C-alpha cells in the first residue's frame, strides 16, 4: 500500500521568499525504513512535518500530498495512522504518570477504559515496561522517557511513524536500544519508519532507502549502498555523517561493493591487503607538554546516600593546557567526578587540587569565572534576555563596570566563537549549535583557566563537531585546560590529548588517546575496529586512511 504520494510539492514559510522545499516528488510504501538526511536547515524537518497534517507549518504550499490513497484524510485518521516522535524528551510526555501517558492518545480517540487497559497490557509486554509502568514520568531517565513516548504512539496502532531526530538527547546506549526497537517495529510489524538523524553510523546499515536533502531539494534517493560516491565526497554533510567504512571506501576510491558496517569494512581491508602491510604505524611526534597539572584528584570518595558509593577512590591528573576526556558507561560516576572537580558539589573525602591549590581554599567568586568555567549541558539555562548580546553583557557587568570596555570584550570573544552575526538575535531564534557557541562565549568572557564540559557533542552533527574541536584546540594553545565528559569515542579519539575511563567509581585507565583506544576491544572507534588487524595503533579514520594510502602506493 502507498502511504504517501507527494507530487511537485513546494513550500515557503510566511515572510520568507526562499523556498524551504522545492519540487519534491516522493512515494513512500508501507513497511519501508527510510532515512532522511541533510545538514541542519536543509528542510528535512519541514518535509517530515508535511507528512503529519496536524503539525504542518503555516505557509504557502504548492503541489499535492495524498495520504493512504484517500481523498478524505481527516485529522482523526491522521492521529490514528501516523505517529510522530519529536526529539525533546522532557516536554513530549505531557501527563504525570507512565500509565496516563500511554492512555493519552486513546483517550483522545474516545476509546473506553477496558480497551485501553488491554492495549496497555499488550504494549507493556512488548516493551518490557512492567518495571516502570507504575512510575511517574519525572522519575524516568531520558532514554526511558523516549521509550514511553514511542510506546504511547504505538498504543494507537499506527501504520507509519515519523521520527524527528529522536536520539539527539540520548546517550549511546539508549540510542542503540531505541533504534533497535524501531528497526524491530519496521521489520516485524511492517510499520513504515521515516527518520531523520545526524548520526548515520547505525542507521545506514539498516535502512531501505536514504533520502538526501539539500537546500530544500531531494538530491539523492537510493538504497544505502547506491549513494553515489561523488555525492558523499562533494556534500559536506554526507562526507562527515556516513559510516566510517563507507567513508574509507569513498576516500580510497575503490570500486568494490560499498561496505556499510564494521564487518564489511574489515572484509574490504582484508581484500586490499592480501599480504601483511609493511608499515603499520604512523610516527606522529607528540608535542611534549610541561608536566604542570591543572587538576589533580586523589582518593576521592563520594556518595549521594549511605547505601551506594558513586566514586571509590578516584585519582586523576590532568595536564595544563591539554584536552582531557572522561569516558565510561552510564552511572559510572563521570558526571559526578566532573561536578566534584568543578566544585559544584563539595568534595568531602579525598583531595582535589586546582593548580596545586586545594579547591576548598578558593573563594567562591575567585573559583567560578576566573579559575574555572562550566559549560552547561542545556545551554538554554543561561539565556533569558531579548538578545544574545544583552545576556552576555549582563554576565560581565560585575567584573567590568565600564560599558565601552565591555562591548569591546564582547566583540572580541564573539568573533572568536563566530557568533558576531548572532549577537542581536533572540537566543531562542538561533539553532542549538549556535546557542552552544553563545554559551561558550559567555563562559570565555570571564577568562577561566580550566573549562569543564559535560557531553558537549550530544546532538551535534559531525560537521559542527569539527568546528567545535578546532575552537578547543585554539583554547589549548592559549594555555586553557579543557576537561570533558563524553560518550563519543570517535570525537575523543580524533581530538583529545588524553582519555580516562571511569568504571565502578575508579579510574580504570588513564592514557594518551592512541594507547587508550588501541587497548580497548569494544570501547573504541569504528575505524579502530575495522583496521585493528592490520594497524593496531590506528584509532582515527585519518590515521587508517593515511596508513592505507602509504601501503597501497609502496
Amino acid at each position, binding site marked *: 500500500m502507498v502511504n504517501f504520494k507527494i507530487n511537485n510539492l513546494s513550500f515557503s514559510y510566511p515572510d520568507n521568499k526562499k523556498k524551504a522545499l522545492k519540487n519534491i516528488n516522493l512515494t513512500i510504501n508501507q513497511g519501508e525504513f527510510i532515512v532522511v538526511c541533510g545538514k541542519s536547515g536543509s528542510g528535512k524537518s519541514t518535509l517530515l512535518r508535511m507528512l503529519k497534517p*496536524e*503539525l504542518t507549518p503555516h505557509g504557502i504550499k504548492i503541489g499535492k500530498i495524498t495520504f493512504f490513497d484517500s481523498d478524505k484524510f481527516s*485529522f*482523526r485518521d491522521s*492521529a*490514528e495512522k501516523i505517529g*510522530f516522535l*519529536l526529539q*525533546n524528551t*522532557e*516536554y513530549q*510526555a*505531557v*501527563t*504525570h*504518570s507512565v500509565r*496516563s501517558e500511554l*492512555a*493519552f*492518545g486513546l*483517550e*483522545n*480517540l*474516545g*476509546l473506553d*477504559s477496558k480497551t*485501553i*487497559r488491554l492495549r*496497555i497490557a499488550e504494549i507493556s509486554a512488548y516493551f518490557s515496561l512492567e518495571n516502570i509502568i507504575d512510575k*511517574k*514520568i*519525572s522519575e524516568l531517565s531520558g532514554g526511558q522517557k523516549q521509550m514511553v*513516548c514511542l510506546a*504511547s*504512539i504505538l498504543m*494507537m496502532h499506527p501504520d507509519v511513524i515519523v521520527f524527528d531526530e529522536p536520539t539527539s538527547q540520548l546517550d549511546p546506549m539508549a540510542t542503540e536500544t531505541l533504534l533497535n526497537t524501531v528497526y524491530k517495529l519496521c521489520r516485524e510489524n511492517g510499520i513504515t519508519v521515516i527518520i531523520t538523524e545526524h548520526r548515520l553510523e547505525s542507521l545506514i546499515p539498516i535502512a531501505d532507502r536514504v533520502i538526501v536533502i539539500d537546500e530544500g531539494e531531494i538530491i539523492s534517493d537510493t538504497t544505502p549502498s547506491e549513494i553515489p560516491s561523488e555525492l558523499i565526497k562533494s556534500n559536506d554533510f554526507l562526507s562527515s555523517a556516513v559510516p566510517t567504512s563507507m567513508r574509507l571506501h569513498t576516500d580510497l576510491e575503490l570500486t568494490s561493493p560499498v561496505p556499510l558496517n564494521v564487518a564489511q569494512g574489515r572484509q574490504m581491508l582484508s581484500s586490499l591487503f592480501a599480504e601483511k602491510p609493511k608499515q603499520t604505524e604512523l610516527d606522529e611526534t607528540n608535542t611534549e607538554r610541561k608536566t604542570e597539572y591543572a587538576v589533580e584528584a586523589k582518593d576521592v570518595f563520594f556518595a549521594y546516600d549511605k547505601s551506594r558509593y558513586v566514586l571509590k577512590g578516584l585519582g586523576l591528573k590532568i595536564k595544563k593546557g591539554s584536552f582531557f576526556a572522561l569516558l565510561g558507561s552510564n552511572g559510572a560516576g563521570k558526571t559526578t567526578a566532573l561536578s566534584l572537580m568543578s566544585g*559544584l558539589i563539595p568534595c568531602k573525602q579525598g583531595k582535589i587540587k586546582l593548580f596545586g591549590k586545594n579547591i576548598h581554599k578558593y573563594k*567562591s*567568586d575567585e573559583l*567560578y*569565572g576566573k579559575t574555572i*568555567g*562550566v*559549560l*552547561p549541558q*542545556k545551554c*538554554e*539555562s*543561561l*539565556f*533569558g*534576555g531579548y538578545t544574545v548580546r544583552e545576556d552576555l553583557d549582563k*554576565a560581565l557587568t*560585575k567584573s567590568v563596570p565600564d560599558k565601552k570596555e565591555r562591548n569591546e570584550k564582547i566583540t572580541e570573544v564573539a568573533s572568536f566563537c563566530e557568533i558576531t552575526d548572532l549577537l542581536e538575535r533572540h537566543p*531562542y531564534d538561533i539553532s542549538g549549535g549556535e546557542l552552544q557557541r553563545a*554559551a561558550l562565549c*559567555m*563562559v570565555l568572557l*570571564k577568562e*577561566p583557566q580550566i573549562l569543564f564540559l559535560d557531553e558537549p557533542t550530544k546532538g551535534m552533527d559531525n560537521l559542527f563537531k569539527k568546528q567545535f574541536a578546532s575552537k578547543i584546540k585554539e583554547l589549548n594553545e592559549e594555555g586553557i585546560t579543557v576537561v570533558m565528559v563524553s560518550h563519543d569515542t570517535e570525537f575523543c579519539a580524533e581530538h583529545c590529548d588524553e582519555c580516562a575511563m571511569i568504571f565502578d567509581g575508579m579510574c580504570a585507565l588513564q592514557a594518551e588517546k592512541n594507547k587508550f583506544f588501541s587497548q580497548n576491544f569494544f570501547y573504541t572507534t569504528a575505524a579502530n575496529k575495522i583496521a585493528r588487524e592490520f594497524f593496531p595503533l590506528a584509532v582515527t579514520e585519518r590515521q587508517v586512511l593515511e596508513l592505507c594510502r602509504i601501503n597501497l602506493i609502496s
Partner: protein
Amino acid sequence: MQLGFKSVHPISAFAFFVFAFVLSMTASHPLLLAVSFITGLIYDIKLSGKKAVSFFLKIIMPMICLITFFNGIFSHYGVTVLFKMPSGNNFTLEALVFGFVFSIRTASALLWLNSFNEIITNDKFIFLFGRISPKTALVISMVLRFIPLVRSQSEEIKKAEKGVGNLPTEKDFIGKIRHGARRLSVLISWTLEKGIDSSDSMKARGYGLHGRTSFNSYSFSVKDALFLLFSLIASGIFFFVGTKYKSNYNPVIDIPMPDILATLLITVIAFVLLLPTLYDLREERKWSISK
C-alpha cells in the same frame, strides 16, 4: 498492584475519608472524639510507621498542649473559675476543656489527612475529579507533570549560572534579588519555548478530537461496595448519635451520659473507622502465610 485499603476503589476510599473528616471535625461528644482520634492515630501509624510516631510526638502532642493552653488564657467564658490571671481575667475550666476538645478535633483531622495523602494517590485524585469532566482530569495530570519539571529546570539554571560564575556573592543582597528575577525570566522563556513541543506532541496524538474519554484502571468489586456501604451506614449513625448526644462546653460543661444504645452505636462507628487497619492486617497475614 497494591494490597489492603490502598487497593480499594477510589470512590469507596474517598467516601470513607469524607466520613472520617466530618466526624473528627464536627463531633462534640468526648467518646466520639476519642474514637476518631485513636483510630486515626492507629491507622496513621499502620501506614507510615516511625514517621507517624515522630509526627505524633513532635507535632500533634505539642499542638494539643498549645491550643488547650492558649484557649485557656485568651477565652474567659464559663462559670467554673479556677484562678484569676495577673491581667484580672478569669481562667476557667470551661475554656480549658473546650480548648482541649478543639485541639483533639484538629489533631484527628490532621491524622486522617495524613492517611488520606497516603491512600488517595494522584491517580485516584485524578480519577475522582475526572468524573466531573475528562478535561479536568487531564489538566490536573498535566500540572502534576509540570511541577517537578519546572523545579528541576530551576535547579539546572542555578547550577549553570554558578558554573559560569554569574552568581552574586553571599553579601550582595541587591545582586541576589536581581539574580532571582533573572532566573525567573530564563525559566519562563525556556518553559514557554519548549511548551511548543508539548502542544505538538499532544496534537500529534489526536488531542482536540471530539469525544475524549478519561481512562482509569479501577474496577468496582464486592469489597468496594461493602466499604462504601459501611461508610454510609456509619455516617447515618453518626448523624443520629452526634445530634442526640450533642455536648456543650459553654457556658457550662454538659455532656449527656450515653445509654446502652449509644454505646453500641459508637462501637459500630469505631469498628468502621478501624476497618482499613483491620483489612490491611488481614491482607498482610494472608499474603505472608502464602509466601
